[in-house]
């Protein structure tokens, strides 16, 4: 839902600027240290008109597989030159159709293509000329909006759309019918900038992830309590509580860091749907634990085990950025530290309050209240994520 909203906002801005009602081509440029990926979304109707209907003989894809045909078409209409005038190799790495939504056009289909460009060793990947005239060589009223979707070293990535930057509008110059090449010069970034952006992303990720926050609250809540005969009996004192909180939080952190690393590198992959369900289950169990002790004295192992599951969910965000190894390492560090910062801040605030409450006579009601709510919410999440 959020993604869709961002997309609509983005499109609205574009229409406002260019006052053009027809859907345009959107070109998203993703930059990693020495590789460019061009993500193209072209309204399918315009592909039909410009590519297949207008020149059925010379350009029709008669006999050719779509992949090969598109490679041939774009080899003429998407070219990248370094400053020395040499062409950079362009490779089609993804081809499918998707449904897009526009505030005035409604839903429409788009051809979605991914091109990978590898600049020569000695060339600056941030400095090049883009010769692009797909579709508009035929439909002269069409235009393509080039923006930067991901630039790790400048802290720009798709999940922080507010920082995404429009680079240029590619269109036919009506005075001479030509399409000007785009001279691209992207601002230099740094590892520090990329790291900071990942730190912020980590902070935001957990601050917006209510399921992780609830899980943490439930764990901290019972930390100061001692179980006697399968019941929460009395508070074991601040020292006892603090020590247990530290152990539980550290164990959770080790758990989620482990799977975050493993899954972000793509060594092991899990279905994100089942991971989300498992998280709901972990919350359910923790919620029940606040009502009746289920794993008293074994919290460290349980927190660590559930940490493994939560880490898998954290890794989805990083994996979607498709970073290469060096940037991924820095991202892992930044992202994880960001999560930790919020986590520690929250525990530092919650723990004293909960400890104090655990020594009052309201403790019982509070635990039942929070635990009961946790049970209901986690069951709701479970069903929501299952179906």
């Amino acid at each position, binding site marked *: 839902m959020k993604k869709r909203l961002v997309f609509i906002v983005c499109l609205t801005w574009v229409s406002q600027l260019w006052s053009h*009602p027809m859907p345009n081509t959107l070109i998203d440029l993703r930059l990693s240290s020495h590789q460019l990926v061009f993500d193209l979304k072209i309204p399918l109707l315009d592909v039909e008109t410009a590519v297949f209907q207008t020149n059925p003989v010379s350009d029709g894809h008669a006999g050719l597989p779509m992949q090969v045909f598109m490679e041939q078409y774009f080899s003429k209409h998407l070219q990248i030159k370094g400053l020395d005038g040499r062409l950079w190799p362009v490779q089609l790495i993804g081809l499918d159709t998707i449904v897009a939504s526009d505030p005035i056009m409604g839903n429409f289909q788009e051809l979605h293509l991914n091109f990978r460009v590898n600049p020569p060793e000695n060339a600056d990947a941030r400095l090049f000329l883009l010769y692009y005239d797909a579709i508009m060589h035929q439909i*002269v*009223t069409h235009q393509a909006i080039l923006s930067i979707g991901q630039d790790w070293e400048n802290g720009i990535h798709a999940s922080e759309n507010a920082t995404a930057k429009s*680079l240029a509008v590619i269109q036919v110059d009506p005075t001479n019918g030509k399409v000007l090449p785009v001279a691209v010069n992207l601002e230099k970034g740094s590892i520090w900038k990329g790291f900071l952006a990942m730190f912020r992303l980590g902070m935001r990720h957990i601050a917006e992830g209510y399921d992780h926050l609830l899980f943490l609250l439930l764990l901290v809540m019972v930390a100061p309590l001692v179980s006697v005969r399968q019941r929460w009996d009395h508070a074991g004192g601040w020292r006892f509580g603090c020590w247990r909180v530290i152990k539980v939080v550290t164990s959770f952190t080790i758990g989620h860091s482990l799977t975050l690393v493993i899954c972000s590198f793509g060594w092991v992959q899990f279905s994100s749907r089942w991971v989300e369900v498992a998280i709901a289950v972990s919350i359910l169990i923790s919620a029940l634990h606040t009502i009746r002790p289920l794993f008293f004295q074994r919290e460290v192992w349980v927190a660590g085990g559930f940490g493994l599951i939560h880490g898998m969910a954290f890794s989805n965000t990083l994996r979607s950025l498709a970073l290469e190894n060096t940037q991924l390492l820095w991202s892992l560090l930044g992202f994880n530290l960001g999560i930790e910062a919020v986590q520690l801040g929250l525990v530092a605030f919650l723990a004293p309050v909960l400890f104090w409450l655990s020594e009052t006579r309201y403790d019982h009601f509070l635990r039942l209240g929070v635990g009961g709510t946790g049970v209901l919410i986690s069951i709701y999440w479970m069903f929501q994520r299952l179906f």
Partner: protein
Amino acid sequence: MKFKLLCSAALVVLLLAAFTWQHTAAKDGTTCFTCDGLSGLEKIVCLADDFKASLTSAQISTLELAYNLTNAAKWSNLPVTLASRIGIRFGDLSADQLVKAKALIAAAMGKGANEGYDEAQQLWAADQYLSQNGGGSAYGSGQYYLAFLGTPSTIGTWELQTGGHHFAVANTYSGGVMTGATPSFRAVEPFAAFQSGTNTYQPMLQERDALAAVLASFSGAELATAKLSTTYNDIALGPGKDWQFPTIKSGIKCIQLSTTQKEKVIAAIRTYVEDIDSVNAAAYMALYTAQLDETYIAYANTTALATQKDYIRIDGPRVWIEYSVQNGIVLSPTHPHSVWRDHLSDYGGLGNPNVATNNFQTFSGKFEIFPNPSTGNSQVEVALENPATLQITVYDAMGKKVGTDLAYNVTAGSHNFPMDLKGVPAAIYNCILTVKNADGTVSRASRQLSKI
């Protein structure tokens, strides 16, 4: 006695009341009466002042804005929710104020049936229809705007700008005469006849029929010459595309046409020009008719101007008319977009890059050529804060162009371009940089370059 006294008193009261009533009535009617006696620009300015007199000072500051290209270019084909307009919104005016605003617009437009003000009213009604038939609150007759760029006067320079979704009028006046009637944008959804109250309207039927009649009169060979190989999903010179007329005209030249065919072209042009007042319309028609032999007709897709991607253009030394058929947005099946522009007098000439007297902003960013003096291979460095298109042209001492222009669409930041002067004789040259920003504003800078 008592009865008489009472009667007299009643009479006095009655007379007094009648006098007061007549007096106030006369006072109310004064301006209206005075404007009625006027004609042309005097009447327009009188009605503009009358409208302003009915507004609060806050409303006036919304209505009256600076006369510049940035403001003048703020019209669009889009609903107002997607492209914000300037000026005062019809929906924000009281009934009395709206009557005065419309009286002004009526005076500034033509009076023929289905043209001028009549067409404007039908377009407002069409948007109201669209709003009530699936379009929602983004559309509707209240979503139109009126703005004065500059202060309305019979001496000074100002533009009467009015428009909204599918409608834009830009009447420019200077020194007591009309100096621009364009860009004049018309479009409608639905294109088909629709019901508004007890009336049935089809505001763009005459335009479409007149333009289609031109193409219908062409022979197979004429059609072949007139046909464009490219595809048009919309008009080429819509909003934001000011002063971008093609340098080379396409299609069939009207000198090749018969008298009957030429008459059809003139009739088609008339359906646009007669949207302005009859005196100025006659002047424009005389000009466009005189230039007809130099005027070209081009079209794309099919000739009926009824299916999507159908397109026609009339491009003369001065006249520019485009009509494009595209898919319906709210209602099926299609709807047209159309514009009348003038190669010289759009916005009264404001921002025309070919007029030497137009002052351009000086480009203040980095613009360096090195090495200078050049032995043949130099670099140009240009730094910009925002994306723009730029062109670098080299002129010799006689003002003649040297070599090919460097032209790029550039991202924000610093850029280096190679400048090849190997073939040119040793001399001092003038390099002109033209930067065109996304908002349509143009800035320029020049540098001297010696070739040794």
